[in-house]
């Protein structure tokens, strides 16, 4: 989808994820760890109130 060939258009500047970053987003083991971490973060937020 992404092409960096269109110089100076809006899509030219933002960072785009590498293949590895993308793979980690749906890697089951890594995402299970993130699931636990995000839940802890959310609970900390709830408890902060």
């Amino acid at each position: 989808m992404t092409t960096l060939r269109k110089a100076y258009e809006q899509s030219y500047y933002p960072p785009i994820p590498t293949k590895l970053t993308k793979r980690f987003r749906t890697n089951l083991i890594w995402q299970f760890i993130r699931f636990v971490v995000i839940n802890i973060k959310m609970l900390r937020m709830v408890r902060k109130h």
Partner: protein
Amino acid sequence: MAKLLILGGGISGHTAALHARSLLGHQHEVVVVTPNSKWNWIPSNIWVGIGLMNQEQVTFDLGPVYKKKGITYIQAKAVSIHPEGSQDNSSPFVSVSHTSPTKIGENEEINYDYLINATGPKLKFEATKGLGPEHNSLSVCTYGHATETSAHLDEAVARMKKGEKQKILIGTGHGTCTCQGAAFEYLFNTEFELRKRGVRDKAEITWISNEQELGDFGVGGMHIKRGGYITHSRIFTESLFTERGIKWITQAHVSEVEKNQISYEQINGTEGNEAFDFAMLLPPFSGVGMKAFNKTGEDITSILFAANGFMIVDADYTPKNYEDWSAEDWPSTYQNPTYKNIFAVGIAFAPPHPISQPKKSVKGTPIFPTPPRTGMPSGVMARIVAYNIADMIKGKESEPKRKASMAKMGAACIASAGANFFNGTAVSLTMYPIIPDFHRFPETGRDLNYTSGEIGLAGHWIKHLLHHAFIYKAKANPFWKVVPE
């Protein structure tokens, strides 16, 4: 015996009703007046809008839940508040108009000792010519709208399958819209769905928004720590858009929606048109338009409500420049300063000012997001108000003691970016506080230890879990209180 009347059986009103009922003995009455017989988990309307869920999966009948809990349920719409009563009725009361099929159109006066206004927003489609499902664009704000939108999406996909190109336009339909997060979720879910249905290459997808920049979300955006930098959400959001090949138009006020084209104006004065085959554009919100009258029948609507129709509470409404805004401007007890037995929670309370910096176009058109009041803070303030009222009814306190200011409250927000158990994703955001406080956190206005954001499959799992957890809680099933707001 005291009577607590709650107007609105949505996310905040229903939360307040369940807590109040569990805190008050049965000598006290809890009454809910709401026009719709169904409770709706609104965040999942996004999934209805792309055809992944149907109406039944995001709603349930309120009647049986209220019967089970001993809450009096009146299917009606509040029309006016009479906080001093009237010549014929010495008690404060609310005039309602019934909406159930058996009593439709009948009027009734309902007395109260304490009142919570949780009527949420009026979807003000009329603010933009041609906006809304009755005219030329679609919406996902109600489950009905979302169902209709899903059918239109199916038609667009069918055309793409035949080889036709389709222009998809998603975003905000007016310069003063809020709830950008919801439109963002619909945008990303649509893009994901088009990929799933094998027609992504036939779709040109454009986002249009009144945000100053991508990633503002009506809260001025947020900064997070990542890769050795403190980075603004704009960078991440632009990255997500670019990765998906979505074009964006920001700082835009949509001035008209025609059959297959919108006209818009931007802050710098640019005027433009954008053609579309499928457009889902959110409306701006206002209060639901209730009136208020004193004992002699004089109109006191401006004492109870701000000009935008939202209810005046314990906020500092003094007009101030952006530089002078303070976290202390935001309300903490949601009590009306004139009538101390009236409270407003969720979207129904009048914010003191926006969170994002207000901007006007060169022509003077206001173009900036108005402040969002998402599910979590709406639920928290509803719970706190229910506890405060219960304390006052039981004579434990003479005034509300518990506080829930959005300037001292955090929020967790999971924005779906594609629904699938193995390759779906969602953006998981936490921020503290919701209202930036540059006095306590001079650098970015927020505590960077509690403000975070990431995208991944874990977010989707959480979003799915929350769908079931919140519906379980709202049905007041066993241990419902364990699920936090």
